[in-house]
């Protein structure tokens, strides 16, 4: 990476992956699709110097789930890559092979939202207790605790 990276170079370089929208002076938000996310991150790492993943955020939009990957590089520009996943089949490829820190975030999102990250070898429970029933995802907007289901705690005594 010889020349400094600016918002314009990023917009130019990432054009093939999706549309860009500038949010603030050092932030840029790109909308892309799940099939291209892997290549988008590879390009941003190799060509634009984004070497750190800040976090992966999720939002439940009703019809879709939106995933945002926030990356930052040595030029201190934050790029957020946004993808939409359909609610009835939220599957997306994992990026933990490119960014090792993504593994833990993907595990957390899977526990709480039920989004499947295909290719991630370690999809075990991390945030919810071991007695939590498998198909209940508490952070989805339409989830309400069911009084007849045992979610954990002491059997027979949950008041």
């Amino acid at each position, binding site marked *: 990476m010889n020349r400094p990276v600016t918002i314009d170079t990023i917009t130019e370089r990432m054009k093939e992956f999706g549309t860009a929208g500038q949010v603030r002076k*050092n932030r840029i938000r790109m909308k892309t699709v799940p099939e291209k996310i892997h290549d988008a991150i590879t390009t941003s790492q190799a060509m634009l110097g984004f070497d750190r993943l800040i976090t992966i955020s*999720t939002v439940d939009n009703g019809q879709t789930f939106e995933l945002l990957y926030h990356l930052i590089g040595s030029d201190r520009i934050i790029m957020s890559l946004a993808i939409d996943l359909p609610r009835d089949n939220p599957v997306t490829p994992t990026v933990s092979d490119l960014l090792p820190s993504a593994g833990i975030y993907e595990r957390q999102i899977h526990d709480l939202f039920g989004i499947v990250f295909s290719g991630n070898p370690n999809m075990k429970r991390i945030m919810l207790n071991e007695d939590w029933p498998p198909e209940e995802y508490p952070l989805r907007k339409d989830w309400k605790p069911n009084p007849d289901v045992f979610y954990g705690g002491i059997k027979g005594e949950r008041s």
Partner: protein
Amino acid sequence: MPEVVVSIGPHHPALKEPVNFKVIADGEKIVRLELDLSYNHRGVEKAAEQRDFIRVLPLLERVCGICSHSHSTAFAKGIEEIMQVGIPPRAQYIRTIIAELERMHSHLLWLGVAAHLIGFNTLFMWTWRDREAVQDTLEEMSGNRVHYNMNEIGGVRCDLTPAQVNAALGRLPNLEERINKYVDMVNYEETMLIRFRGVGRLSKEEALRYGTVGPTARASGVDYDVRKDDPYLAYADAPWNVVTDTHGDVYGRTRVRVWELQESLGIVRFCLENLPEGPIRVPVPKNAPKGEILSRYEAPRGELAHFIRTNGTDKVERVDIRTPTLANWTSVAMCLVNQNIADIPVIVAAIDPCLSCTSRITLLDNRTKKAGVMSFDELIRRYRSRHPEEV
């Protein structure tokens, strides 16, 4: 075999539950690590969607008891930016003073606990006694030693009187003298911290790749610091420097934290002496417009990221909290592979895990197929028994 020195979050023999991960071992060597954070999962993010902005700030404060101001300021800052409201300079300075005092109390706490883990209890007592001066200042300013609740959307809750400012300034010289003693200790008297050397080493490339943040990353030479990268509050006005070190091991992280204590004291002094006049809050609309923001804040343990999305009502649509300790766990997992079980306490403690992810360590022995649960006390005893000459 590298020597290991641990500095973990406040771990006294009294406390039972440190961090939790399953260690799959082959005899004494660790093969794999599995993390389980469910002991402290309280579902704060879901609750935050059901509370309006006034009620959600005390909830977010109590995500963590050591960095409570960090969470509430990160959230308030994000909402103010979505509303496009600028808070008055006096409020910015007051928030900065509280933030840096919190950083000081957190680093002193860590230093004490680190010392306790290597058996150096005198330093434990010293640092926690010095910490009381910071707590007194915070209590005078906000009314509580922890969970200050100073933030409101649009400013701060209460003002600083001249008497409070003078009292705080009066405590700083003594505190500065104590901190300089600790700085001398890390600079010159290495024998005290010799057991921190060479343990849990992270190179600069590894630190970046595993997404480490905070003093853990800065000790490996990575100079990310949100206060300089994305200046917020009064950090652009106050003269201070980002502290980095090149050692990359626990000794380096100790140096970074102790030097940061000095920098924080300087920032507090500057803000107290140059407190601008004016109002402490501005009126804000009840509902926030639709928008989203990634609000980053430099908590004592590293970069805290709140992703907030609003939907035009007086509640948030989503707040996604990524704590710095979560970001640092990957580096711990990577560091621990091929180390000995007895070295776990050191490497874990080096990242200064916030106890809000507390738990126990479960050991699964691959060879004998036995599972056992070990508490941190036992691990520390095991570590000390293997290195008897250093106790």
